[in-house]
């Protein structure tokens, strides 16, 4: 399997043209994506046009930008000017943004090519991509399983080679959990490292955009392009952007890696997942890292904390969908209040409505202190646990999700069971910490297992370094789903 850097060399030497790469990707999408359904929109003509321009520039001897000609998929909650952006919701089914998100603008400036927009749980609320109003996405390793979520389309597209890399967003694990279920690399940067301008808001204090890729090097390349201060997002951090590829090959000898005790003691943790991640820890030890057991007593309270904070913020963020300015409107009613209430009831699916209700309840008179303020205080305790941990270790290690990909439909009528699959990813969002999921094994039925590394604020360089060193020492990352159904 090739990295972006290897593609670039081939492209520069003229061994392959950008148009060939795009055409190959499009024909693969046409032959297998009716089964996987990772894309909601394929940007065929514009992608071919952009590729032809890259080839012309190369032929003319122009310098090529870092992602020149690379087919990239974008989660459909990132605004792309002139190209539909639906959030997988009836509410935004016909929405065509008049502006471009900062992250995608940066990718196109770097020569990347938009190959398509990917499926997600409606408004990024879900862990299986089944709440999409436009149909579920299948897991490329086993199509009766979910790809995880909410960025399931972006993860499945990378796993089945329907793009080279992609972007997703992560509010409580929506990049890392699908990366784990689909056997790819998924990175959630530090909160504020990447601009949220043009990311359709879900929970503003938690949302962060990040890359999916088939290897750690590519994740570093994408982060390099999208990171940095953006005047349009006042929560973006004004910290210098380091070279994320520079230290990937440096030995991790002497690095202290913490295993969070509470994660491995989890009742709901699959034995196969536990064994595989502990084996990965041994692997890191054999690379010279020192393993340290760490306690984060409030870690497992992350999920209850999250299910107050995220729906509360969502209920406020989604108040803008009122049937007036853009989005779906129910027309057959003649007063404003009913028009808004019916438009919202018909435009939003069940999970979105459920979360708006929870959030509104938690923020309503008489409950704010008991729910919202309490959750924000526990959020402080969770952060403090991490602060203490990083006094003792450099990087933390946990499984990414307690299980491998579950069967489609399994958690349909049990929202709480669905929420629990984000148990191990949520704390990093609450604390704003950078975190990466990468494959570390397979369960007996052949489904990928993911391990999660968590770093301190802005410590993406070390996070990527440890991930890359593990990847290089392991054969796991060379595996890809065979997508046998192509010819079936």
């Amino acid at each position, binding site marked *: 399997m090739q990295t972006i850097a290897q593609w670039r060399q081939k492209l520069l030497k003229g061994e392959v043209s950008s148009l060939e790469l795009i055409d190959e990707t499009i024909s693969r999408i046409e032959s297998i994506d009716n089964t996987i359904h990772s894309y909601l929109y394929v940007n065929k003509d514009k992608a071919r046009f952009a590729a032809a321009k890259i080839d012309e520039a190369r032929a003319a001897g122009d310098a090529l930008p870092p992602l020149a000609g690379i087919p990239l998929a974008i989660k459909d909650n990132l605004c792309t000017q002139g190209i539909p952006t639906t959030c997988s919701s009836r509410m935004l089914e016909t929405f065509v943004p008049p502006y471009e998100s900062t992250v995608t603008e940066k990718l196109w400036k770097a020569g990347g090519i938009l190959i398509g927009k990917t499926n997600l749980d409606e408004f990024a609320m879900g862990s299986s991509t089944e709440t999409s109003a436009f149909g579920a996405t299948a897991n490329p390793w086993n199509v009766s399983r979910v790809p995880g979520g909410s960025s399931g389309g972006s993860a499945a597209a990378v796993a089945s080679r329907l793009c080279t890399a992609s972007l997703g967003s992560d509010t409580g694990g929506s990049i890392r959990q699908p990366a784990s279920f689909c056997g790819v690399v998924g990175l959630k940067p530090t909160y504020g490292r990447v601009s949220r301008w043009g990311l359709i808001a879900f929970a503003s204090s938690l949302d962060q955009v990040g890359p999916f890729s088939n290897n750690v090097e590519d994740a570093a390349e994408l982060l390099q392009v999208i990171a940095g201060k953006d005047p349009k997002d006042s929560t973006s951090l004004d910290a210098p952007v380091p070279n994320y590829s520079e230290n990937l090959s440096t030995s991790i000898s002497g690095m202290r890696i913490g295993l969070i005790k509470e994660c491995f003691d989890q009742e709901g943790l699959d034995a196969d997942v536990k064994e595989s991640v502990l084996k990965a820890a041994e692997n890191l030890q054999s690379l010279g890292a020192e393993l340290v057991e760490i306690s984060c007593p409030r870690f497992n309270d992350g999920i209850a904390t999250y299910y107050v904070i995220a729906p509360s913020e969502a209920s406020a963020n989604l108040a803008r969908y*009122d049937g007036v300015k853009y989005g779906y409107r129910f027309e057959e009613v003649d007063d404003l209040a009913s028009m808004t209430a019916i438009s919202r009831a018909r435009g939003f699916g069940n999970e979105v409505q459920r979360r708006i209700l929870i959030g509104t309840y938690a923020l309503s008179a008489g409950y704010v202190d008991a729910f919202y303020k309490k959750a*924000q205080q526990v959020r402080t305790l969770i952060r403090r646990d991490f602060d203490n941990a990083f006094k003792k270790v450099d990087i933390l290690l946990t499984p990414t999700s307690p299980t491998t990909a579950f069967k489609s439909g399994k958690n349909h009528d049990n929202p709480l069971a669905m929420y629990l699959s984000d148990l191990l990813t949520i704390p990093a969002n609450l604390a704003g910490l950078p975190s990466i999921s990468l494959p570390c094994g397979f369960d007996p039925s052949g489904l990928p297992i993911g391990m999660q590394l968590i770093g301190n604020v802005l410590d993406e360089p070390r996070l990527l370094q440890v991930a890359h060193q593990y990847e290089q020492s392991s054969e796991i990352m060379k595996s890809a789903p065979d997508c046998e159904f192509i010819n079936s």
Partner: protein
Amino acid sequence: MTRITSDDVRKVAKLCRLEIPEDDIEKYSNQLEGILEYIAQLERIDTLNVPPTTRAVEVVNAFREDTIVSSSSDVRDKILDLAPQREGEFFRVPKILSE
């Protein structure tokens, strides 16, 4: 600790402008109760004198001059065109007050 009645669901639905069909009220009240019961485990945690976290990574206020950066009427048109109903320079909505 928290019992969510059908009336609670109706009240909250009104607050957040969601027209929930009567048939679904009970389903929602059961589901919300389950979720809120789970959330209630936060009560056992001692948070006396613990300050709330509103943002995970501290940033200072970002001020800028309040200046117009784009004067193109094109932008206004593009935005108005997204409205389900537009009338000239306005968003058109059904009447607000009943007669």
